[in-house]
């Protein structure tokens, strides 16, 4: 008996080792270029280029706009995800594909599309008569980020809502809870893992957004120059500075993502505790 369980345990360890070895190539492929990037940044270069106010300003702008974009995506994306998860209707496939479109559209094309819509050739002229300008302003950064990053949240949230058993929602309704209360007390908590995962991916994609932002918001230092744009403008004439900025963005993003997962994970554990 003891001999059999020991053999099973050894088998589990062996399977885990094989799985880890199979996972290793992709992990190395993902990590090695990033480590190479960080390794090329010397402290002297970092102090020269990253500690300047422009880099700090670009990083702050990136963090701020990505966070606002995430908030907007959560507010407007959650109803879309819920609608698609729980309702069947004609043309649902078309709506589903439309949501996927920003994923396949080259970001520069997305930038021009937004510029044509919100710029002087579109509704921009009318908006300007009401003293609101969107193109080439920080607001354009947020809109570009919402456009390219929202599918990540909507798709994850939809999968999360679909995974909530219908019986539980019905039970909530039979106990007298309205749709809003059922959503807040039953559906949303049970789909929390997917919602958080989608939010994290959306924030990360918004933070790294470059092409659409450059075209739609421009690259005004201190105003619309986000970290990815600062990396691009520096890469033209000063590659060491661009690498230092890129390393900083990677490290800060990694730290924020780890922190977000940790906080979200802890809250979820508390929320789901019996």
């Amino acid at each position, binding site marked *: 008996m003891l001999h059999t369980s020991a053999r099973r345990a050894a088998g589990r360890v062996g399977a885990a080792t094989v799985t880890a070895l199979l996972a290793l190539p992709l992990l190395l492929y993902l990590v090695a270029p990033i480590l190479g990037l960080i390794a090329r940044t010397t402290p002297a270069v970092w102090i020269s280029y990253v500690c300047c106010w422009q880099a700090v300003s670009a990083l702050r702008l990136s963090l701020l706009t990505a966070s606002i974009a995430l908030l907007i995506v959560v507010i407007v994306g959650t109803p879309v995800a819920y609608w698609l998860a729980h309702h069947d209707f004609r043309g649902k496939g078309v709506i589903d594909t439309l949501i996927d479109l920003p994923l396949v559209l080259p970001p520069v094309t997305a930038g021009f599309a937004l510029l044509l819509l919100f710029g002087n050739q579109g509704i921009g002229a009318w908006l300007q008569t009401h003293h609101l300008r969107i193109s080439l302003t920080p607001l354009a950064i947020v809109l570009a980020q919402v456009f390219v990053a929202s599918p990540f949240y909507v798709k994850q949230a939809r999968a999360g809502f679909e995974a909530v058993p219908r019986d539980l929602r019905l039970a909530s309704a039979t106990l007298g809870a309205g749709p809003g209360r059922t959503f807040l007390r039953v559906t*949303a908590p049970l789909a929390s893992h997917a919602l958080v995962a989608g939010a994290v991916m959306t924030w990360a994609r918004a933070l790294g957004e470059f092409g659409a932002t450059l075209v739609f918001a*421009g690259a005004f230092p*201190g105003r619309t120059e986000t970290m990815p744009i600062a990396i691009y403008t520096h890469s033209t004439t*000063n*590659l060491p500075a661009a690498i230092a900025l890129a390393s900083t963005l990677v490290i800060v993003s990694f730290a924020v993502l780890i922190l977000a997962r940790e906080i979200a994970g802890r809250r979820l554990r508390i929320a789901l505790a019996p």
Partner: protein
Amino acid sequence: MFSKLRRAVLPLGILVAAGCGGAGSTGPKMEPPSATARTPQNVRLIAFVGAASKPPSSEARDAFEKAHPNITIDMTFGGSGTLLNQMTLEEIGDIYMPGSDDYMDKAEEKQAVALGTRKIAAYLIPMICVQRGNPKGIHSLEDLARPGIVVGLAETGAVCLGDVADEILRSAGLEERVKKNVITYARSCDQTQQLVQLGEVDAVIGWDAFKHWAPDDIDVVPIARQHVRVRSIPAAVSAYSRQPEAAQKFIDFLTSDEGKAIFAKHGYSVAPPQT
């Protein structure tokens, strides 16, 4: 649940308010960089500047603003074509300063700049750019055709530098032979420079300024005078400018001795070469 939501939203609201930049805020300002005169004396200009000119043009802007405290210049940087599209689609901007003169030609064709306002801030002189120390012993265009030499060029038709390289190689009668050694065509000037800077190729036909952009990685070899094709970095007043006088003042500053000294400091040629 709602109180939790309020707690989550509140810090973001504060962040937005901070980003909106009240008086005295040093953070990113959310108001558009519109080209409106703040007072009859105080003027705000928008300049669309090729990304490669960022270091000298930013320094020139700082010096100009110091000398003209009533004029503020907001600069945006990017590829010359993208900038031209932004400027024409938005019908905005006061100064256009692309990375090379062919984009200024396009701007003039589109009537996006005021004719007669174009001035040259710096000259772009083609050179053979090799890795530091010239390990492959490349001393002429003929050497680019040697077997085993790995060459990168900018793409003809897409990048001004590509057209220039094409003209140079045709002038030297080496077009076919050198192109046998070309392993890649870059889509921008900076990508062309990075090919040799990162050691992907032995040589590229680039601009003289590449040496200044990456002094630790790049050496330059002059091209025989009869084959050299010179280009320039021009600046002109936008056709959409509402303050053309102030915009012209900045362009005049760029081409003044002080402006030229700034460009020269950043490795650009500020006088036309003898060809």
